[in-house]
């Protein structure tokens, strides 16, 4: 039998997980950037309005972040080109990172992530995302995600509670 015009299947489950993961990362970044001094320090490297795009190729799930004042904002899709673009080469890569089955630095060394823009700024972004992930994930999960898991103080534990509540709901 010869088949033509075969349309590839879409993974509804993985797409949904990545969508939820991007939501959590977007809100988590907004929230963490409002109170974490290390993250605020990293943001000084970027000018006001610096635009970041994380996207999954080829399906196109996107996460847009922008520096606004001393914090980050999760914004909707933009028509202009981002200053820094991080592309997960496929849905599977994004899914594994979001579910802690893999992590950003492993994906990078396996060449499953592409970076468009200034590589030095991507290092700033990696450090920012590490800070955000240390709040989003409890320690038993973040050890799979981060090269070095920080020891949280009482105030940082409170910060984690903030991220899990008002952070994920409102980005505060």
């Amino acid at each position: 039998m010869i088949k033509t015009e075969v349309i590839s299947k879409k993974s509804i489950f993985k797409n949904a997980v990545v969508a939820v993961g991007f939501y959590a990362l977007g809100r988590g970044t907004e929230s963490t950037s409002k109170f974490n001094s290390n993250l605020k320090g990293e943001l000084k490297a970027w000018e006001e309005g610096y635009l970041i795009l994380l996207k999954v190729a080829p399906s196109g799930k996107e996460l847009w972040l922008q520096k606004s004042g001393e914090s980050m904002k999760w914004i909707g899709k933009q028509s202009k080109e981002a200053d820094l673009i991080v592309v997960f080469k496929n849905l599977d890569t994004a899914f594994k990172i979001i579910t802690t089955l893999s992590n950003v630095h492993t994906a990078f060394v396996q060449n499953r992530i592409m970076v468009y823009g200034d590589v030095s700024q991507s290092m700033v972004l990696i450090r920012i995302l590490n800070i955000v992930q240390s709040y989003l994930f409890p320690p038993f999960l973040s050890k799979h995600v981060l090269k070095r898991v920080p020891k949280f103080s009482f105030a940082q534990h409170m910060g984690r509670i903030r991220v899990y509540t008002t952070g994920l709901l409102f980005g505060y």
Partner: protein
Amino acid sequence: MFPKYFEFFNSVKINAGENALEGLPSELNRLNVSKPFIITDEGIVKVGLLDIVLSGFNDSDIVIGAIYDKVPPDSSIEVVNEAARIYKEQNCDCIIAVGGGSVIDSAKGMNIVISENTNDIVKFAGHDRIKNFQQPLIVIPTTSGTGSEVTLVAVVADKQKDKKMLFTSSKLLPSVAVIDPRMTMSLPPVLTAATGMDALTHAIEAYTCLQKNPISDAYAYSAIKTVSENLINVIEDGKDAQGRLELAVASTSAGIAFSNSMVGAVHAIGHTVGAIAHIHHGMAMSILLPHVMEYNQNTVGNLYAKLLLPLAGAEVYSSTPKEERSQASINFIKEMNKQINTICGMSITLKNAGVSEEKLQEIANKSLNDGAMVVNPVDLNTDDVMSVLKKAY
């Protein structure tokens, strides 16, 4: 540990050995090109190396379209654009780069400008942004260190913004690398030492960093063995043609290794030391290598232990207790540095190399933004980099 997934790619044809340059007309014919653009620097012309390259075209029909010798120590957008303009004006159809890292980066940079038909190379900075296949590029390295003849990386400086742009793409790999020992015979002892230690660092970092894979390991291991066996001899006797060739091939092997498995903290810190304190890249590698290895030792000491065999040889390896081999590898490199210092005076501390202590904090802060930090096996923050710098000082 065998990686769960890796990628390896190297498409460069390597012609290495006696009279390799005489094969140039035949390579051009194979690539179906006939009007090369030669890019080099004034130093290469001055010491007569370009004349040796041109002699490779004797008795052929090849007409050199243009010779551009104005590449400065660091490649820049201005140089790349000017070279590309002349290339197009002269209707050249291939590029021959004769020189070290800066010349080779300039060649790759002008290739991007030509092949993407652009006047804004900045748009292509980053990873895998180059879409069009490049003009045929033949590289004739004149140092035994950078390995740029087999890497998919180019670094071009944006002087207006005072920053270096990194371009990585498999499309940047040259078509041919021509390794002829005549090209490095006139390299002075200090430069031989510095570029040789650069090659050794490439190989050791490629073997021990997170992106390592079994294929790049094979190239790295071979490079480490060959550099260890030949570097001191060639520094002492620059006329050792066989030694020069082996070092050049080791540098190429190390280049293939790190092009596929990246380098780590030695390069991340070393790039920044070079940018801020303006010391030779190879010298910075040599000074920093043992100290970064000591920092990484708790995590990858097993790999450093394996490297004692290619570094020091079978007798030393077998007579060293297993638990001492990692430190023995580090000590071997420290001893090598001391030997090199005795023979040719190359500095073995940052202080001796002219780095002022006030600059160390700035170096520590900025080195975290070097992409190579991602693949170092151990995470470093500013304090960690400072501790390495202080030990190297």
